[in-house]
């Protein structure tokens, strides 16, 4: 019946508009009201404005500009060859295509894309940071990533004439040259014994001053990263067209079948991959944790609470009332063993490999994991094994690829 209705619509429109190009032809919505509600909840226009009460510079254009310069600056590393963009490569959708990150050394986790990452509630695969600016600070000091001491990072930026001018325009006065000269170049609160001793030899006032500037650098990098919004995908265009009563021809029958499977409760996809970023922002075990080696969220619960740079810390711009997710975070280790953050599925087809360890090379491998994982079948995960025919797998993969950037 539906093609006939569409044909009648086209014919009647062609009479009134004197032409009926297919894209403008009103089309009956093929979905049930419930399915259509679910589909609309996944579209990018359902995404709210980006916000972070702990970073008052998040949407400041000057901070975005300076953050961009810091993001691409290889001097912010021990060997002068690593920048944020070394792993978050713009031409690879701000990821790197590697199994695990490769900077000063090889890391243990897969590099996520940064497009849309500012909407996350927690950062890193285990969510050990509660803001984007606080997250941005970690790689700078991480021995496997930039491996640059905190004092070296702050000195480098604040003694660079161009950075200094822009920094002061944003944050007002910065520490004087004489003040910075008194700081050792290689001091940080965690690292080698010599580095820790050098950090502890600083006065509390000096440490707070260094941490204040360090936090500001994170806020600027976060401002730049927050400007990296996920572009519209073909799926979003499909939803927009259908909302406007236009042709639904943006997706092929195979892709539409994949969408139907994706929102079908039987496949359980939507349990975790919900909302316009296709993530429920939560932590789940899908049978990929490694006892004794990497237990995911369970291993870092205290680290978040006692992080000097968290939402409740002195360098945060938020009031305590804005820090509810930190205040009420789940602290039960047993519940979170092997749990990792649900990743966004936006642009998923172009950001392989997959999972926190990057061990699944293709989307087909990911689906096979959900079908065959012994951990899932043994009940040691937050979902049950899914059942898909080969044709259904192909349809789901086709749909997932409609989330790619064109």
């Amino acid at each position, binding site marked *: 019946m539906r093609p006939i209705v569409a044909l009648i619509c086209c014919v009647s429109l062609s009479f009134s508009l004197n032409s009926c190009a297919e894209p403008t032809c009103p089309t009956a919505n093929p979905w049930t009201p*419930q399915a259509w*509600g*679910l589909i609309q*909840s996944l579209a990018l226009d359902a995404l709210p404005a980006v916000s972070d009460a702990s970073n008052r510079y998040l949407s400041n254009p000057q901070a975005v500009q300076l953050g961009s310069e810091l993001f691409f600056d290889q001097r912010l590393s021990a060997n002068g060859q690593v920048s944020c963009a070394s792993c978050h490569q713009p031409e690879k959708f701000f990821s790197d295509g590697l199994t695990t990150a490769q900077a000063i050394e090889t890391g243990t986790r897969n590099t996520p894309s940064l497009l849309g990452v500012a909407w996350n509630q927690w950062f890193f695969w285990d969510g050990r940071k509660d803001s984007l600016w606080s997250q941005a600070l970690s790689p700078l000091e991480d021995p496997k990533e930039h491996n640059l001491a905190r004092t070296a990072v702050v000195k480098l930026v604040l003694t660079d004439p161009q950075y200094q001018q822009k920094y002061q325009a944003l944050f007002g006065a910065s520490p004087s040259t004489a003040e910075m000269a008194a700081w050792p170049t290689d001091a940080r609160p965690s690292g080698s014994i010599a580095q820790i001793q050098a950090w502890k030899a600083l006065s509390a006032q000096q440490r707070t001053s260094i941490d204040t500037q360090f936090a500001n650098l994170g806020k600027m990098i976060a401002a730049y990263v927050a400007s990296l919004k996920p572009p519209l995908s073909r799926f979003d265009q499909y939803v927009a067209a259908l909302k406007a009563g236009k042709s639904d021809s943006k997706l092929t029958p195979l892709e539409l079948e994949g969408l139907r499977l994706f929102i079908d*409760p039987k496949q359980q996809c*939507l*349990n*975790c991959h*919900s*909302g316009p970023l296709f993530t*429920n*922002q*939560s*932590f*789940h*075990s899908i049978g990929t944790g490694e006892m004794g080696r990497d237990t995911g969220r369970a291993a870092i619960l205290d680290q978040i609470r006692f992080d000097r740079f968290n939402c409740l810390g002195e360098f945060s711009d938020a009031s305590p009332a804005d820090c*509810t*997710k930190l*205040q*009420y*975070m*789940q*602290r*039960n280790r047993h*519940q979170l063993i092997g749990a990792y953050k649900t990743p966004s599925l936006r642009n998923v087809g172009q950001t392989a490999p997959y999972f926190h360890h990057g061990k699944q090379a293709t989307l087909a491998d990911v689906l096979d994991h959900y079908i065959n994982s012994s951990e899932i079948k043994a*009940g040691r*995960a*937050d*979902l*049950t094994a899914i059942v898909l025919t080969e044709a259904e797998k192909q349809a789901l993969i086709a749909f997932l690829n409609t989330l790619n950037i064109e």
Partner: protein
Amino acid sequence: MNQQMFKHIFILTGLVCVLLACKAPTDADITKPAWELTQTSTNGLFKVRLRCQHLPSVGSFQDCQLELTDGSGKAIHGANIKLDGGMPKHGHGLPTAPVVSPLAAQGHYKIEGLQYNMPGAWLLGLLIKTPAGQDKLVFSFEISNLE
């Protein structure tokens, strides 16, 4: 007391009333809950009414309160109430660690930090301790993925 002073006190009183009315929403009584469940505890010691401002939904913090009474319907204040929950079919708990604390009204308690992260069948369990004894109960309900 002259008329001017009386006027100042009147304005000040009005201001205090306005400020009190603007307290955090969780402290205000939920007079028209969109969703509520009532249940008697396992051993019949308590009756609990769970009242929420909105239907349970995925993602946001839930604005909910509890009303606690004994078997005769008398409000119980000062109880120690622990709340936990999860999805039995999925084998996971709540994404957050909610806290229950007493409100000014007798027998009324507010729930803070309650969040759900998936549609489907959920359980919320309460462990209630009072000088008269302790008991527990479990609410069972479904969350639609369209709410």
